[in-house]
Every structure is written in C-alpha cells, then in structure tokens.
C-alpha cells in the first residue's frame, strides 16, 4: 500500500472544480473586498497623501494608509516568521510596490477603482538595486573552509575559474497569494493560501496583538507555494485587520503583478567558482564564492555556494557567501533554495572541468564520489549518487552523446546532451499528527500540515491505512487547520517524511493500545475497538527536529539524483528547445509512486525553466521589476516541455527514519538546470555563464562561431 501509485484522494474534487482554495471559500458568507495599493517608487518617503476621493467613492468602507491604519505590534526581525509583520507603518518606502494604502469596499470592482484614487506623493531617495552595490567587502557569511584552495589552484595542474550569474526568480504559483478573514464573536478565522500555518499563526497573532487561541488559520487547499506562501505577507495582515474593524468577512487577493512586489523572490547571485583537479580527474580543490542579495533588515541567505559541500570529495574546500543589502523586496526561499541556482552554476563548472580534462562528464562525477561527508566527516546516509548517474546514463543512451561540441545537427537544430548531479539536504522537523479510530469504522488523521499539490492528503491516508491494515477509503485526512496538531508544514521538502513518520507512530500507538487489551492476535481492528473503546480511540505521533534526532548527528542526510537532457538549439536564431529529459533519483522510500513522479517532473521543469526561461532584474534606477507579469516573466508552457522521465531508485534509508522515507519536493529541481546548460554547450560549443540562456545571451557566442 505504501508506495503504490494510487490516484490522489483529493483528485476528484480538483478535477471537477470542487476543491475550494482560499478565494473560493464561501464559509464566511458574503465578503467585502480589499485591494492593496503598492508604492510607486523604490526607495524614499511618502510626503503627500490624499484619500478623499477614494473615501467618498461608491461602496468604499475604509481607506487606510500609515496615517490611520490600526495599531499593530512593531516588527523586530523580518526574517523571523513567528514575529510581527505590521503593515502600513510609517512613511518610509523600502522597496518598490510595498503596500502604502489599502481600500476595502463592497465589491472588488469598487475597491480596485478606489485604490487607484488614492493620491500619493513621494520624496524619492536613490536606492541600491544592482547586485554589486550593497556588498560589504570582506564580510563573508555561511562560510565553510578546509585546506588551502588558493594553493591548490596555483598547483593545478588542471583548473577552472569561472564567473556565473543567476537572476532573481519568482515562485509564482498559479494560485495568487490570497486571504479571506472573518472576525466573528471574538474569533478570527483566516483562510489563507499558506504553506506553514503554525508559524504564520504566531506571526499573525503577534502582529495583531491577539492571543493565538482566538485565531484559526485554515489552508485546506493551496494552489502551489514553492516558498512564496511561507512568510506572512500583507494580504493576511490587512484582511485580518479589516475584518476586525468592520465585522464583515474581508477577501484580499494579490494581483499577479503584486505577487512580483509584495511577495518575496529568490535572490540573484553572482558566483566565482574555482576547481582544481589532477589529470585523471580527481578534484583537489573546490572554491565557490557567491554574492547574493538580501533585504535590508532581512536575514535570508540564498545558499548558492553550499551545494558542493557534500557533493564531491576534495581536500581543499572553501565555500562562502557575500550578502548584498539592496533596496528590493525580501529575498525568500523559493523552490530549491540554494541548490537550484547553486547546482546549476556549480554543475556547469564541473562540465567545464570535464572539457578541460577531456573526460566524460559522467565519469568525472563518478570519480569524485564519496561515501563520507567531505566536510562533516561522517557517513553520508543513503549515498547513491553513483547509482543515479550510472542508471541514468544507461537509460538515456549517454553513449550516444556528441563527442565534440557543436558537431551534431538535425535540420536547423544543433543537438547536444548534458548531465548534472543533484543533491538536496534531507531535514526533519518537529511535527505532531493525531489519528483517531471511530467506532463506526473510520480512521481520521488530523494535522496542520498542508497539501500544496504535494500529495499529503493521499500519502497520509496510505500510511495510516497500511499501519492499521484498513483500506485507504476508510481513512479521512483533515489537514491545514491550526485547530489540528502542529507541524512545520510544507517547506524544505520535509513535510512528507515528518507527517508520514508521525502518522505511522500514532497508528502504532493505537495498535499497541488495542493489543494491550485484545492481545496481538486480533483480526478485526474495529470490532476490538468497539468492544474495548466504545467511544473510539485517539493517539498522537511525533517527530523530532533534526538537531534533536541522533540519526542526524551520526549521519549526514541527503537525497540524490542525476539528470540528463537533450536540447536542440536553432543554429541561426539561438532558440533553445528541450527535446527530452531523464532524471534518476534516490530519495529513500517512495510513499506514492504516482505523486512522487509528478513532483519530480515538476521540479525538473523548474530546472529547465531556470536554465532557459525565467529570471528578472530590477530597473537599475527605479527598483521596479520590468518583467512584472506572466507575459514578461516567462515560465515554460506546454510546448516547451516534452515527455520527461523521472526514475526513482528502489530505496529505503534506515538512517532517515523507521519508514525509510526522505523528501522529494525540491530534489527534482536541483541539478536539472545544469544538465540543460551543459547540453546547450554540447550542442553549440558556446558556454553561457549568465542565466537564463536566452537568445540575447547565446547569440553572440553562436555568431562568433559562424
């Protein structure tokens, strides 16, 4: 049952339009509509506000600016999810699009129009918007150093030193960030598009200065998150404040354009990668200096340079980050934080090294495989990178790779193959799940864990069904309400492992309790339940945070993969199109082969997108995002994505947890971008080091080759 690729249990609702995401909820009754107005400048002060026209506009209930917004707790640490995130406080504008006014009206149309009527004047200050502008020289963060990379680079004999850049990425799930808040009888119910509701409720309670017990957050269906629904954003705070002031439900949806400014982004990065190797391809040094953007007052460092720390052996290692404090919105985790951009550039550099060594890129990676974490010096649990590479090479037909870059053609297309490794830390966090056995023969599992499309509803039902020996159809899974036991939600690819392990433990506890009175030989769980516990029985199961779990001290825990891509590059125009792609992954035991494969394919598509399509930079003068909607910020469409194969090795990591399960949500995205970039090089002989590989970035090199 565990592992079987059953259809999603919430699938019938999702394919019929019956799944009610935040903005679809009718539970609270007819709402008022709130619309946020964002700052029109990148940095400066508000010097003038005229809300009169908006206030008298039809249907308007309130118009708030920093001058009259309800009191909220002050922010101390923006990075702390559990801390206050007050809105409309003060006249300072710290990034383009930051909320400066909020209008609530009877209809969406009225609110939107009135938001446009608010007049705001600014004193514009010059801001720092370009990556090199905000760096403190010599201040390194998240540093890991072993041996002497400089010396190894000087000794060589084979070295690569290259500069790479990756742009800002926006998570942009298809469901916009949204909140429907309802204040009723002193209780605040917040329907919210969210990933980790136990953190959000703390932040919200702190902001509103309300006791958590007077708040319920409910995120029963979430239309994708990818990091963008972890932090507490303006829509949740403003909708809550408004319903508390107006005593009517208030619905706030960010516009797609606002999702580029009010929600955070993945920081852009600049990397200098240094590699030294022996002529037979053994790495002697790995150096990776990454510069990444941070928000003033924020603390998130995109761990671009961390990706090599457990990837390959090498005696000399130096990986570190410089932070550039800029006047842009918050840098937040976006799917594959650190590793998506980091592996894309690092695995490109490894490809450059293979080229210099005249060695097969798969072979080079295999040669530097390691069973021991090269930095923590403890065993790497479930290290199967080599299996992924070998299996992938075989299935993909790697043997048939064009030996010489730029040598294969199919009509107008130049054809190339590329490979890259993937690695992703496996984390565990504290989570609790409750399982109840009801005498009428149902199993009810509850947790505040969310299902972002990750399949939580389904896999939890499978785990509980397996543990209790009942069919999946007998299990009801209720998720994503803060009335349920708390978890760390979805983020960091830990949700599936945490929740399934805790569910299994709760089920074991139920079985133990029944066995204690009925003996171990019973064959009808519910008959015994009715006999001994006529009112039903409940148990909870828990997981510990990684740092409290001895497994994580004794073993270095990661998941692994290898991806193989074939691209065609139009020889004249430089348009790149993916032709086929294969990924092989080792990520512990798979809970549902169907949903896991989907997640991996989704992740791989993110890699393709990062390599070829998406990315944005702010205007260097105004700090706004010219690629600020989905017509400018390009995501792959159907026509860009051919069939993608995702193979999961039969695996069980006993050092991860007793179910042998690890996470897969981000692994697929890992090195995939690198495999695509390397395929572009193999197709053309042109190495593009600034991502994404657009026509503008590729054409000069292509033209130079004739």
């Amino acid at each position: 049952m565990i592992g079987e690729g059953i259809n999603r249990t919430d699938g019938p609702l999702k394919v019929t339009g019956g799944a009610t995401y935040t903005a679809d909820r009718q539970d609270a009754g007819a709402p008022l509509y709130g619309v946020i107005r964002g700052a029109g400048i990148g940095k400066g002060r508000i010097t003038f506000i005229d809300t009169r026209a908006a206030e008298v506009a039809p249907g308007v209930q309130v118009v708030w600016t920093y001058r009259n917004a309800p009191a909220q707790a002050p922010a101390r640490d923006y990075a702390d999810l559990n801390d206050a995130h007050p809105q409309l406080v003060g006249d300072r504008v710290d990034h383009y699009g930051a909320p400066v006014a909020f209008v609530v009206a009877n209809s969406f149309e009225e609110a939107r129009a009135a938001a446009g009527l608010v007049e705001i004047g600014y004193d514009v200050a010059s801001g720092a918007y370009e990556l090199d502008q905000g760096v403190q020289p010599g201040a390194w963060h998240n540093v890991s150093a072993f041996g002497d990379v400089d010396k190894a680079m000087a000794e060589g004999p084979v070295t690569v030193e290259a500069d790479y850049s990756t742009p800002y990425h926006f998570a942009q799930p298809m469901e916009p960030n949204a909140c429907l808040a309802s204040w009723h009888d002193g209780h605040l119910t917040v329907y919210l598009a969210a990933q980790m509701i136990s953190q959000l409720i703390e932040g919200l309670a702190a902001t509103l200065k309300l006791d958590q017990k007077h708040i319920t957050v409910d995120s029963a269906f979430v239309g994708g998150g990818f990091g963008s629904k972890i932090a507490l954003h303006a829509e949740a705070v403003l909708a809550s404040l408004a319903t508390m002031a107006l005593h009517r439900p208030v619905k706030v949806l960010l516009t797609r354009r606002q999702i580029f400014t009010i929600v955070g982004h993945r920081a852009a990065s600049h990397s200098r990668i240094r590699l030294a190797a022996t002529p037979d391809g053994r790495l002697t040094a790995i150096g990776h200096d990454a510069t990444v953007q941070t928000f003033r007052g924020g603390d998130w460092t995109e761990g671009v340079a961390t990706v090599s720390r457990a990837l390959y052996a090498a005696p000399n290692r130096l990986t570190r980050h410089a932070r550039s404090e800029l006047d842009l919105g918050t840098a937040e985790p976006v799917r594959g934080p650190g590793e998506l951009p980091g592996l894309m550039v690092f695995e490109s550099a490894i490809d450059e090294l293979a080229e210099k060594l005249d060695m097969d890129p798969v072979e080079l990676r295999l040669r530097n495989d390691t069973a021991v974490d090269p930095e923590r010096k403890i065993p790497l649990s479930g290290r199967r990178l080599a299996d992924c590479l070998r299996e992938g090479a075989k299935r993909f037909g790697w043997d048939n790779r064009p030996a010489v870059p730029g040598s294969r053609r199919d009509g107008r297309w130049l054809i190339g193959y590329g490979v890259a490794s993937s690695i992703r830390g496996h984390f565990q966090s504290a989570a609790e799940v409750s399982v109840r056995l009801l005498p009428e023969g149902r199993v009810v599992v509850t947790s505040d864990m969310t299902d972002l499309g990750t399949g939580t509803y389904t896999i939890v039902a499978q785990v509980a069904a397996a543990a209790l020996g009942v069919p999946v159809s007998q299990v009801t899974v209720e998720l994503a309400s803060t009335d349920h036991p708390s978890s760390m939600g979805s983020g960091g690819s830990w949700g599936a492992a945490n929740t399934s392990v805790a569910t299994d433990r709760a089920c074991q506890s139920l079985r133990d309790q029944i066995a204690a009175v009925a003996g171990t030989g019973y064959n009808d769980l519910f008959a015994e339940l009715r006999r001994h516990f006529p009112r039903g029985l409940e148990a909870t199961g828990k997981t510990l945070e990684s740092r409290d779990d001895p497994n994580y001290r004794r073993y270095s825990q990661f998941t692994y993969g290898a991806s193989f891509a074939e691209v065609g590059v139009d020889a004249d125009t430089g348009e790149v199109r993916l032709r086929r792609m294969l990924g092989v992954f080792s990520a512990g035991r798979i809970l549902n082969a169907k949903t896991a494969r989907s997640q991996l394919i989704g992740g791989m598509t993110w890699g393709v997108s990062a390599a070829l399509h998406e990315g944005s930079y702010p205007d260097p003068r105004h700090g706004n995002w010219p690629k600020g909607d989905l017509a400018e910020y390009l995501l792959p469409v159907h026509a860009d994505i051919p069939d993608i194969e995702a193979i999961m090795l039969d695996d069980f990591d006993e050092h991860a947890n007793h179910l042998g399960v690890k996470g897969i949500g981000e692994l697929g995205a890992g090195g995939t971008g690198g495999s695509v970039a390397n395929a572009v090089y193999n197709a053309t002989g042109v190495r593009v080091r600034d991502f994404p590989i657009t026509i503008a970035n590729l054409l000069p090199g292509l033209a130079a080759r004739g």
Partner: protein
Amino acid sequence: MTIAQDSPARSETSAAACSVTFSVNGRTSSLVLDPRVTLLDVLREHLHLTGTKKGCDQGQCGACTVMVNGRRINSCLTLALMHEGDEITTIEGLGSPEALHPLQKAFLDHDGFQCGYCTPGQIISAVAVLEEIGAGVPSHVTADLNGAPPATDEEIRERMSGNLCRCSAYPNIIAAIRDMVEDHV
C-alpha cells in the same frame, strides 16, 4: 526630488448597473451588474461557481478558461455584460466527483495536476482543443495548412500552451489528453 504618482485628481461616479442574461451549465441567470464585472468575476463572486480560477486576471495563464457557445476563452478578459444570451460552460458543467467526464477521469488517472489550481482551465481547454482538432482548425505547428490537423502530441502541446501549470504537470496532462484522443478521435 518630489514626484507625484501617476494618478490625476479625479473623482469616481457610481457605475450604472446593467442587466444581462446568459446561461451557465444549462441554467439561466439574469443579473444586474456593475459594467466592470468580468465574466470570471461574475462566475466566481456572484454565481459562486468557483471552479473557474483567477490566476492572473490578464489573459496570461489560462486558469480562467471557460467555453462560451462552445469556444474556449479567457473569462478574465471579457465583460459579463458582453455575454447576453450566451451559453457558458464551466468545469462544474463537465462532470462531478460521482460522475466524472472521461477527461476528468483521465486527468485523475494520469495525475495531470498537483496543486489543482490550473486544472479546471486545463480540462476545459483540453475538451475544446480536441473539438478544434476535430473541426480542422489549424495551429502554429500544423504542417499542412490545407489538410486536417493530426491529433499528435505536438499539436496538443501547442494548443494547450495558453494554460500555464507552475506545478508542471505538463507531461501528465498530455498523457491524459492522449488517452482521450485514442478513445475518442
């Protein structure tokens, strides 16, 4: 430097409400509406048919796709008032969990979605795509403009390209539609 934001001094007058009658999934609705209400918002906020999603409100994502008189359109870029007498089909009109449309079943079996947010739009679009191919409507990738377009994966991918899926269920969506092609075209 002080600049004023680009919003000239002005005041707002009340929008004169207009009436419109159309049918949604076979049921006639007569509504009095602010002219600004889009077809998408009337479905979602007035008729509470929330299966049709708002992904961008700008024609850029396809989440709001519905059929009007048998043709798929983005309901976010059309006014409700422009649909007097029209017949509108939304995801709710296609099937129910108890009685799935064959394509809904194929999406379920092939896991043609993850978060499910783009899914109603994808399914409505796919139904229309198969009809368009059947009716001989050409596409960008149709090799022979004078012949009948084939129901190949390439054709389907091109025609489905107005429906973004950030979860990237694309290969599974194509597999689901391919099933329908094999069974029905």
